[in-house]
């Protein structure tokens, strides 16, 4: 079984304890308390962190010293038999994402276009932008990054399934896997690395692909001239170096992202997982603050990266007068492939 690569010394000597001090869902009196709680986690002792963590993934980004606080918290929770969410919800996710041989794989040569296990991605990954890779689309539990189980502190599921997923891609002969789901890329890079799982193909982040394609199609772009708010997904915390791509892509298609409070490191969860894990009070509060902040920024669109965030927030942002749209669809709008009015 794979094990988390973890260096206790890095934490023991941490001068900032940012992993917990910056947390938006738990509060600590100061460095000493936060650091103390994290050390309890490390030593395998009980800590309130193990009961209160909302699983937003953010500490993976807050830690600048190369350790993996979130994975460790999740490991410890599982070791102690703690459930983040209700047991039937946790098991539902495990059952639902089991490989049953019901996957779909297109004609993969060197490249595969991963639609994870999310039907919406199959539609997003079509059209002019993806014309060369769309025939190589793959979909299904067999190709799904199992990162979602970190929300439920079931790291064992990840350790068991991720190597199989990787093997499935290898079987297809893929040398490059373009990941349409942020989380897949995060899994094949950050999580696989943290557990020492070998990834014998090159994971490609879809926003890198999108940016280069949009540059190629520069002549076809009509600047959209709109202001948007961006909903950063939890899994982007695993790959913070990729965050700037959003601005680059939006710049290219004439879209402005006015500054707002809950952006970048300070972004808020879409609320879907919070609802399962902590109940509606926290989820409602987070969504309300997030959405009001979007409105206050002067945005007219809410741009999504993750289809799960989009599903959770679309109706709600629409009620606030913002138009929900995936960043890929926004690019399709810029090249005239999609109507500007979105549902």
């Amino acid at each position: 079984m794979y094990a988390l690569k973890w260096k206790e010394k890095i934490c023991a000597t941490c001068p900032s304890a940012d992993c917990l001090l910056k947390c938006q869902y738990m509060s600590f009196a100061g460095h000493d308390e936060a650091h103390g709680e994290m050390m309890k986690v490390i030593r395998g002792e009980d800590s309130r962190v193990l009961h209160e963590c909302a699983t937003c993934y953010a500490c993976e980004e807050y830690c600048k010293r190369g350790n993996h606080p979130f994975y460790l918290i999740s490991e410890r929770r599982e070791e102690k038999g703690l459930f983040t969410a209700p047991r039937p919800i946790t098991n539902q996710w495990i059952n639902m994402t089991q490989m049953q041989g019901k996957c779909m794989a297109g004609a993969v040569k060197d490249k595969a276009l991963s639609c994870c296990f999310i039907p919406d991605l199959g539609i997003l990954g079509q059209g002019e932008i993806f014309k060369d890779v769309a025939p190589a689309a793959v979909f299904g539990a067999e190709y799904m990054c199992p990162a979602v189980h970190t929300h439920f502190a079931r790291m064992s599921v990840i350790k068991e399934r991720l190597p199989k997923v990787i093997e499935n891609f290898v079987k297809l002969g893929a040398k490059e896997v373009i990941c349409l789901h942020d989380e897949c890329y995060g899994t094949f890079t950050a999580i696989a690395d943290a557990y020492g799982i070998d990834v014998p193909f090159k994971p490609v982040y879809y926003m890198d692909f999108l940016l280069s394609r949009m540059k190629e199609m520069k002549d076809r772009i009509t600047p959209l001239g709109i202001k948007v708010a961006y909903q950063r997904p939890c899994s982007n915390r695993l790959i913070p170096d990729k965050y700037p791509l959003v601005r680059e892509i939006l710049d290219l298609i004439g879209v402005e992202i006015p500054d707002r409070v809950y952006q970048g490191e300070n972004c808020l969860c879409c609320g879907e997982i919070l609802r399962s894990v902590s109940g509606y009070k926290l989820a409602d509060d987070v969504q309300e603050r997030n959405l009001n902040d979007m409105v206050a920024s002067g945005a007219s669109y809410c741009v999504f990266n993750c289809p799960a965030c989009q599903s959770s927030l679309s109706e709600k942002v629409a009620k606030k007068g913002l138009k929900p749209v995936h960043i890929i669809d926004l690019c399709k709008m810029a090249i005239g492939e999609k109507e500007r009015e979105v549902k």
Partner: protein
Amino acid sequence: MRDILKALVEIVGERGVSNTPEELWFYSRDPGVLTPHLPDYVVAPRTTEEVQKIVLLANREKIPVVPMGNGMSLTGLVIPLKGGIVLDMKRMNKILEVNAMARYAVVEGGTSQGVLKAYLQEHHPQLRHSIPDAPPTTTIAANAALHGQGRLTQQYGFNSEMVTGLEVVLPTGEICLIGSPSLGPYWFSRGPTMPDLSALFLGWLGTTGIITKIGMRLYPNKKIRDVELFVTDRVDLIPHILYKLTHLEILEDVNVWFQPKPLVFKGNYHITLYFTGDTEEEITFKRRMIWDTLQEYMDSKDGGFMSVQYMKDMLMEMPQRGIADFADVPKGGGFEYSGPITIIEHFPQYAAKVVELAAKYDVLYASSARLISGGHCMMFSISFAFNRNDPAMMTRVKHALDEATAFALEMGGIPWKPNFMEQKMTMEKMDPNALKLLQMIKKNLDPQGIMNPGNWEVNP
């Protein structure tokens, strides 16, 4: 024989009667597992007077008459066990009146659920009726006649309790108005404060007369409907959860269901909770009450709310089209269920029985219980799918269903829309004096024994 056909043609015209092999074959069966039996004629009346004439003829000639809506009870209630006339009521499908202020509708005896739904949506969007999840072709009168349930049954009781008046052709041919319409033009009460004569026709499965008009209560159609889905893997908690939920008095409809496939549903019991409001505030308030009342189960990690986003359209649909899809799981066009009415306390025992029967008879199950009248009881469906091309599987399903009914009776439950065999089992267990009363009523109303014979038959 020729004379009877001729007489029928005289009553309903050439297009209203058939004795061709095709119609006889089709009207000899329903989509369930019971053995078909051929009728001699299929007749489709258009008016009450035609129904009356048919019944008078049937009396004269001593021919059985089996009234039929869409024939979707699945338990063979429209199979003409002793031949005779199957009376397809669906051409009597007019909506006669909607009294919006008194919130009732009067429709003809063959009017379908779907047509009333569409009519109200267009002409009275502030009103709705308790639409069942059976296909929209099923009829309002037949549903009431077998004590059907609908989307408002949790709040307001069996759909048969919503009846506000009847026009019935008695087995002896008299046209009889029941309830307030027997005294005046209004269809607001099926009986009270007089003796409730509607009970002579509801639950009798067409053995005491033919409903040609029916008044039904309508209810407010709130502007917003919403749904939450609570799941738990502990069946023992279900009665307690339901008790707490019904205490809220805010739920439109509550269904508890479990099925082994697809895998997302494996191992869990799902409680679908519908609630309504006229404003977002009302909806939010109700949602919070629902969550708050179940907080203890979330704290103990025994239960939680699952995301309904992907299923919402399907769950909100009325009727739910997806329900019929269960029939195609074994790729064979069939399912049938036993749906006893029982107390909520017994949910765990019934749930165990479903799984036991499915394993014993090697058949696919799905189960769904609907709360009735704020939790006073529930309809617990023990549902098995089958392949119509596999007679052995159909026999296994039949045995499993028989055993389910025997179990329900043992547990003190009441079989719902029982087939003729289940009716016998029920009558055997019934208090003898109640049975005598039943027999007395039946004999007096139908002295010739022509109405849907073989059903509720005390001394066959």
